[in-house]
């Protein structure tokens, strides 16, 4: 878990689920795992994961192999590629949703941290890669 008072700039990669209650800027590559952004979480990053659950705020593109869930407190600005997306009433979403299961493999670059094209997060200044958690 990344606590509400933590700030991480760089790439997060690994093989376990993560809960973000703090601030993350960069890239999150947890291809086989779940990324949860808590209500206090503030993420400016592209995310590759199996499941992405958003209760907080994110600016960035997301690619999930299973599904993306945006709760009523979620505020999302970015593009989503996932076979299943759920949006609760009250959630704020700005961007595109690509629900083409067959096309997901070709849109994700396996084994790399390469972000999707037209990334929302890449529009911000590049963060310094000062942390890599594996």
């Amino acid at each position, binding site marked *: 878990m990344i606590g509400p008072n933590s700030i991480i700039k760089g790439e997060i990669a690994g093989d376990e689920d993560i809960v973000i209650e703090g601030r993350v800027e960069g890239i999150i590559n947890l291809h086989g795992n779940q990324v949860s952004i808590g209500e206090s979480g503030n993420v400016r990053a592209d995310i590759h994961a199996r499941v992405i659950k958003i209760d907080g705020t994110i600016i960035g593109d997301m690619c999930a192999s299973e599904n993306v869930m945006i709760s009523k407190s979620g505020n999302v*600005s970015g593009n989503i590629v996932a076979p299943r997306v*759920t949006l*609760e009433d009250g959630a*704020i*979403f700005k*961007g595109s949703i*690509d629900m083409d299961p067959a096309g997901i493999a070709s849109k994700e670059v396996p084994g790399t941290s390469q972000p999707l094209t037209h990334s929302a997060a890449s529009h911000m200044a590049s963060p310094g890669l000062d942390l890599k958690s594996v």
Partner: protein
Amino acid sequence: MQTHLDSTQPLQKSSRQPSKLLPSSFRYIDKRELATVLHIGPALSETVDFFSDYRCKVHFVDLFSALPIACGEHTTASLEQQVEQVLTFPSDTRFDICLFWDLFNYLNSDAIGAFLTVLRPHLKTNTLAHAFSVHNLKIPHPRHVYGIEQLDTLSVRARCTAPPEYAPHSQNQLRQLLYCFKLERSVLLTDSRLELLLRATL
């Protein structure tokens, strides 16, 4: 720019409205083929659920949050520049369906021209579009947000805050202003609004 018109003012509970023309706007869509959709307005949960049955890419663009599209003291940007700031698609994007809902009731003729100039490169010869207009220009401001429950059923929610510059056009005016669309069919609704089916003419 504010990203969401109603971000601090939740939409009210939805009601349902049958749609005679929405099914026609999906007539070229094969669920096995990837479809690209433009949805003008905030993303609602039921709309996202609806599209999960399709192979599709849906671009949700809340142009209402950028209203008014107008030149004046508040901006030095041209009308096209104002629209381009909101309609940001990859250059190879071509829409199969455009869901305009009641957007044209909030754009004056110049703004509609600017909107179409920006949108036109992303249309195809068989792009179909759905929109609402009015039969009677004096009908009260509807202040609706639309979603899709089923192919023939819309969800309609009331906005807590009305978008600015409500100035609907007559059907004849709209037919002339929408120069890259042909009006295929219109249906008069009980509250003197019109449901429109448009087809791109490139």
